[in-house]
């Protein structure tokens, strides 16, 4: 059973407020593509329009994708607990300095979700209160989920400093 689609009311209101946004629907899910300069405003509009649950913030690395123009595609999955609407917001950014503005002010769950994206992809979240690594250790230097980082790693596991009983 597919959940009700938000295209009926919220997406037209969004397009009226921000003309020029690209929107599409696929397999019952609706998505909106937003450029970085207005990403925070669009997400604020959607948060005020009833999307009170930020389900996930994640990213796709289009490094080896045919026909890709920008390398990183951020994905914001929004949901409304009152009406069961779901919406996907895509924000595309590129090397050398991928950066978007943080949405921590809208949803507190964005705190750790953006830390994870920073950790795994290296996208800077401007305005985040505490942007540091979440899952990898603090001393780790690479961004593992990028497509140019190998699955087996670059030997970090073997070069980890070990404290013996005498040192500790």
């Amino acid at each position: 059973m597919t959940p009700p689609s938000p295209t009926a009311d919220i997406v037209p209101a969004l397009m009226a407020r921000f003309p020029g946004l690209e929107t599409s629907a696929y397999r019952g899910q609706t998505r909106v593509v937003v450029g970085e300069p207005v990403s925070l405003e669009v997400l604020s509009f959607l948060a005020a329009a009833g999307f009170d649950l930020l389900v996930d913030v994640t990213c796709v690395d289009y490094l080896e994708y045919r026909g890709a123009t920008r390398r990183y595609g951020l994905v914001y999955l929004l949901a409304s607990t009152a009406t069961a609407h779901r919406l996907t917001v895509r924000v595309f950014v590129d090397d050398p300095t991928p950066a978007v503005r943080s949405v921590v002010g809208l949803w507190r769950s964005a705190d750790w979700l953006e830390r994870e994206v920073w950790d795994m992809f290296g996208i800077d979240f401007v305005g985040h209160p505490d942007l540091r690594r979440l899952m990898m250790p603090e001393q780790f230097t690479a961004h593992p989920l990028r497509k140019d980082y190998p699955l087996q790693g670059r030997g970090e596991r073997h070069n980890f400093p070990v404290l013996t009983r005498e040192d500790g």
Partner: protein
Amino acid sequence: MSIAPDHDTRVRPAATREEDYLWTLNFGPQHPATHTTLRLVLKLEGERVVDAMPEMGYLHSGFEKIGEHLTFNQYVTVTDRMNYISPMANNVAWHHAVETLLGIDLTPRCKVIRTIVAELARISDHLLSNGAVGLDTGAFTFFLYGFYQREVIYDIFETLCGARFTNSYTRVGGVSHDFTPLVIEKIRTFLRTFPKTLNDMERLLTRNRIFVDRTKGVGVLTKEEAINGGASGPVARASGARRGSAC
């Protein structure tokens, strides 16, 4: 022979704050009560936890990175390990997503089978989670009542597909093993006998004075905090959200 200095040279610490009298305790990552590795640095005032700083990442397994190298039917084994307390439910969710993207429709029988196994896995998950509440507060009988029923569910899964745990049960467009009459009979027996255990578990703890005193009002999460903080499932429902997820 010493020359007395003309000023007080004793070393004094900087002015102490109220919070410096709190105990800082490292909890984990190797600790049985963390239920797999989590590191918390707790600030304690007596027995009350005043502040907790979590350090995550010990259980980070690189599921997404591994997924870049596997086919759809191979990856289902990795989804088993995600929420490993209810592996069947993860398998169903993974293949549901794959089939939605591929545009494949399932037969009604397959949908019914997947729903049944996902619900059994969910019951098993909740039995473990609630049992762990009992285990951590010392109510060991409650824990064992729940775990005995989990063994019954594991037996059903073993009869169904050969694996008690991490079943990798679903495939693209279907499941790996069909239901046999024996499986159906075992599920019916479970459904007949499980409500009594649930009743026993509830009578043990729900109105137990000691348990209520220990848990009521502890770690309260308001509804707005829960939704804004991204809580879902039982955590959100416990905080008063009408649905456990937005659907």
